[in-house]
C-alpha cells in the first residue's frame, strides 16, 4: 500500500478543458454546486503598441486542483467532530456519519477541497477514487485527461520523477498544509502569493 498518494499536474499540457472536473462529477454523482476538482485559470500581462509594433506580455495557464491529501491537513485540525481523517495510504476523507456541517473545513482549506452538499447538510470532498484504486483502476480524473496532464501515485515517486514544485500561483504557500502535490510549472508560472496575475474564472471556482 502507498504511504502517501499524491497528484501530479503538468501545466504545460493542461488546456483547461475541464474533462477532469466533469468526469469527477459524473463518477461521484455530485450535485449542482459541488465540484471536487476545479480548474483555476491564472492570467496576467499586458499588450501595448510601440512605434506601430504590438508587444504583449499576456499569459495564462491552468491549474487543475482537487483535494491534495495534505501531510498536515488544516481541515483535520479545525474539524470539531473528527469526521475528517487521514488513511494509511495518506488519503484524507470525510465520514458522513460524523460531519456536523459546520463548514469550518471549507473555510480553512486553501485549495477549496471540502465542498458543502446543502441537500445532505454535510461536507464532501475528493476521496482519490478509493473504490477505483481498490479495483486497480486509475482515479477518474487521471484516466480521463485527454492531454495526459494528470498523474497520480506515491508522492515520493512523483517527486523523484517530476521534482518538488508545488508553490505556483494561485496555489497558496505549501508550507501551511504540505500538499501531496507535484507541479510541472508553465513557462509563465508565477510563485505563490504573486500579485502579477489573477484568477480570471473565480465564478467557476465557487
Amino acid at each position, binding site marked *: 500500500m502507498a504511504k502517501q498518494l499524491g497528484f501530479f499536474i503538468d501545466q504545460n499540457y493542461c488546456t483547461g478543458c475541464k474533462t477532469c472536473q466533469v468526469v469527477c462529477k459524473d463518477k461521484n454523482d455530485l450535485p449542482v454546486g459541488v465540484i471536487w476538482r476545479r480548474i483555476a485559470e491564472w492570467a496576467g500581462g499586458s499588450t501595448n503598441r510601440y512605434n506601430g509594433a504590438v508587444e504583449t506580455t499576456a499569459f495564462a495557464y491552468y491549474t487543475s486542483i482537487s483535494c491534495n491529501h495534505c501531510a498536515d491537513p488544516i481541515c483535520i485540525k479545525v474539524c470539531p*467532530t473528527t469526521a475528517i481523517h487521514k488513511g494509511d495510504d495518506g488519503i484524507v476523507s470525510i465520514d458522513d456519519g460524523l*460531519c456536523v456541517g459546520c463548514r469550518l473545513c471549507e*473555510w*480553512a482549506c486553501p485549495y*477549496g477541497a471540502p465542498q458543502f452538499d446543502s441537500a445532505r447538510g454535510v461536507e464532501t470532498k475528493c476521496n482519490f477514487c478509493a473504490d477505483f484504486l481498490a479495483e486497480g483502476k486509475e482515479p477518474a480524473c487521471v484516466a480521463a485527461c485527454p492531454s495526459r496532464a494528470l498523474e497520480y501515485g506515491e508522492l515520493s515517486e512523483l517527486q523523484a520523477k517530476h521534482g518538488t514544485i508545488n508553490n505556483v500561483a494561485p*496555489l497558496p504557500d505549501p508550507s501551511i498544509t504540505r500538499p501531496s502535490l507535484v507541479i510541472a510549472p508553465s513557462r509563465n508560472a508565477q510563485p505563490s502569493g504573486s500579485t502579477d496575475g489573477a484568477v480570471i474564472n473565480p465564478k467557476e471556482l465557487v
Partner: protein
Amino acid sequence: MDTQETPLVIFTILAQLSVGAFVINGVLHVLAGRKNGQAKVDKLSDPALYAIGPIMIVALAISLAHLGDPLHAIYTCENFGRSWLSREIVFGVAFAVGAIIFSVAHAKKWFTPMLLQLLAGVTALFGLAFILSQGMIYVIPTIPGWDSWATPVSFFITTFLLGGLAVGVDFVVVTTIPSMRARHGGDTTPLLYQSLRWISASAMVLLGVQFVVEPTYALELSSKGGAAAQSANLLLFGGGSVFIVEMVLFFAGGAMVAFFLHMIRSGGPIAVAGVTGGGGATAVGLSQRAMVYAVGTAFVLVLASEVLGRMLFYTANVRIGF
C-alpha cells in the same frame, strides 16, 4: 454584505454578552461585596444573574441553525485536543450549565457561600475559556482577515463591554421600576453609584481600545495585498457604509457612557434624591429615569455597533489560495 452567517452573529454576540455579564457580576461582588455586604449586591444583580444562563442556552440553540446536520452536534466535542471549535462547544456548554446551576443554587440557597463562590469562579473560568476558544476558531492561517491577535482581543472587548453595560442596565432598572425596587431595592444607593462608576469607567476604556483596534487592523490588512487586502476592503466597504455606521454608533455609545458617567459624578444629590427612599416608597425622580435612558441608550448603541461589526467580520472571510 453577507447575511448568511446571521446565526453565528447572534450566537457570538449573545454568548459574549452572557459571559461578560457573569464575569462582571462576579467582579462587582468581589469588589463591592466586601464594603457593602454580599446581600446588598445580590439585590441589584439577581435579575441579571437569572437571565445569563437562559440567554446562553438561547445563544447555543441559535448556533445550531448554522449547522448542516444539527443531529450530529453530539459529536462536536470529539476533537477537543486539536479543534478550537470543539473547545468552544465544550466550554460553552459547561458555562451554560454552570451559570444555571449557580443561579438556581443561589436562589434556593443550596450550598455554603464558599461552595457557591467556588462554583461561580469555575463557571467564570469556563466562560473565559469559551470566549478564548471562540476567538481562536477564527485564527486560521489561511484566512488573513481573521488570522490575527485582533480577533480574540476584540471578542474579549465585546464580552466585557456588552456584559458590563448589561449589568449596568440591570442595576439602574432594578432601582428604578417600582415593583422591582420593592423586591430588590433597599438602601443600595451608594453601592449602585459606585458600581455604575466602575462599569462606565471600564466601558470607556474598552470602547477606546476597540475604537483603535478595529480600524488599525483593517488598515494593517489593506497594506498586505492579496486576500488580506480583499478582507480589508470587505471590512471597510463590504457593507456599503456599514463600517461608518458601526463606528458612528460606537462613538455615540461611548459618548453616552461618558454622559452617564458625568451624570453619576455631578448629578449625585439630585439623582440620589430619587432613590434614597428605597423599598419603592418614594416616587422615582427624573434623574433616575434619565439614568435609565442614558445607560439603556448606551447599551443599545454599543450592541447595534457590535452586531454590525460582527456582520462585517464574517463578510471579511476571504481565504488565500482558491
